[in-house]
């Protein structure tokens, strides 16, 4: 199959630093004229979650209690119960680096497609309404593979 000028990304991680890297790459690619699709699965769904409790059953509600939204994500290292997040954000602010939530907004403005994974939403009991309105209809692995097979660049973060 002919590769198109596309970037397909799987966002599995819910770590603040990895989400930041993902959106930096996505916005950079979109700015360079690439068509970008980001598939969010498992912990990555937190980057799309609204600030609200999720879950239907007992386990789902317990999980929903622990899940964060993009503003509350902790870095993968030096989390220190939220202190690391606070410190990193302060340092990023001081150096004029956009925060993850600002980069997400920019990515959407640049036309990056935001696609959640249906299966992980089912398992984690997250509804479409729990995600930001800009998220497209949830898809499965076949949709990702189809998109990835046409993409020059694929990344798993």
């Amino acid at each position, binding site marked *: 199959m002919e590769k198109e000028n596309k970037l397909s990304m799987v966002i599995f991680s819910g770590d603040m630093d990895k989400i930041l890297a993902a959106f*930096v790459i996505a916005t*950079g690619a*979109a*700015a*360079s*004229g*690439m068509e970008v699709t980001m598939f969010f699965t498992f912990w990555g769904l937190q980057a799309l979650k609204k600030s609200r409790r999720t879950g239907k059953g007992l386990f789902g509600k317990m999980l929903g209690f622990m899940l964060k939204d993009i503003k509350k994500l902790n870095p993968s290292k030096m989390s220190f119960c939220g202190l690391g997040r606070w410190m990193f954000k302060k340092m990023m602010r001081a150096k004029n*680096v956009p925060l993850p939530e600002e980069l997400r907004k920019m990515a959407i403005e640049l036309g990056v497609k935001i696609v959640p994974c249906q299966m992980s939403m089912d398992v984690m009991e997250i509804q479409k309404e729990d995600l930001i309105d800009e998220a497209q209809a949830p898809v499965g692995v076949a949709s990702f593979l189809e998109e990835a097979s046409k993409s020059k660049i694929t990344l798993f973060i």
Partner: protein
Amino acid sequence: MAEQIKPDLVLDLKGLLCPMPVVKLSQAIKNLAPGSVVEGIATDPGVMADIPAWARTSGNELISIEKRDNEFHFLVRKK
């Protein structure tokens, strides 16, 4: 040589870090007619590598890029 080209738009990118210079440049260039020239002024040394790379991938023409004092000046022509 580059001094003689008059830019259609001057973009202040001072104080911005990756990926913002490239994002702002692509947003600014979107609204311009082909052939228009944008001058960018940045302070992030990363633009010396990134603006030429952006020009190659996006298919726009980098006319010049240079360091002047502690700023980086570049001229890009929209294709």
